[in-house]
């Protein structure tokens, strides 16, 4: 197995995430797409860690743990925001949430 295939997998997943973030209207689906992108980053980190071995391997894992922790925090906050918006507007379509202008 080559490093390149892992990196390509990661890049592809990240691009899928970008597509999802840009195209999806539902806020929860946007959050999921962001999870895909974070997951791609994790694959990338672990891939490099396995390639470089030794301390890089351990440090990559530590980084991934941080990413996962941040992702968990992000989902928590994200869902709280979605629920708050849903309560106020009875809709969670991101393109209808545009009162933050002017």
């Amino acid at each position, binding site marked *: *197995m*080559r490093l*390149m*295939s*892992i*990196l390509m997998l990661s*890049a*592809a*997943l*990240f*691009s*899928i995430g*970008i*597509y*999802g973030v*840009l*195209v*999806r*209207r*539902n806020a*929860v*689906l946007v*959050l*999921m*797409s962001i*999870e*895909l992108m974070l*997951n791609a980053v*994790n*694959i990338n980190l*672990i*891939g490099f*860690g*396995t*390639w470089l071995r030794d*301390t890089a*391997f*351990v*440090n*990559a*894992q*530590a980084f*991934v*743990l*941080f990413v*996962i*922790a*941040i992702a*968990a*925090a992000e*989902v*928590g*906050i994200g*869902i*709280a925001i979605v*629920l*708050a918006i*849903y*309560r106020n507007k009875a809709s*969670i379509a991101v393109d209808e949430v545009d009162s933050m202008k002017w």
Partner: protein
Amino acid sequence: MSNQQVVQVIIFGIAAALIIFGGIRVVTAQNIVRAALYLVLTLAATAGLFVLLLAEFIAAVQILIYVGAVVVILLFGIMLTRAPIGLTPDLDNESARIWGLVAGLVFLGVVTFVLWRHFASVPALELSAPDSGANEALGRSLLVDWVAPFEAVSMVLLSALIGALAMARKD
């Protein structure tokens, strides 16, 4: 290629196929709960990939945090808001589809180009069974080398917890 390497490539292929398939379905599925379930598929397959790449602790964390908690919270949020069975129209911004596709492909192209130039010549990865001290080394790394980020992340989680609580309250 040795036998073992063949097995590795096959496992990687299966995992990668599941990851990509799940990912594509996450962003294309026309039912929001199904999209979340495809996310589970992607995340679980990623955990499998981590096991293959010798990071078994990360794989377990991936299962526990992502599949066990994050997706459940996502589903919880979905079902609290609106989650009809069957196809839901207008999950996508139709006019943005083409631009999303372009953006994704451009990004993929750029990254592929860069990666190809720098990492195409890297030889096959050597995947030997991890020595038993791997998790101890990880723990040491987290709490010695990365103790400051570790504490910072703890603070982030704490404030996220409080923030989520404050936002989701009714009053």
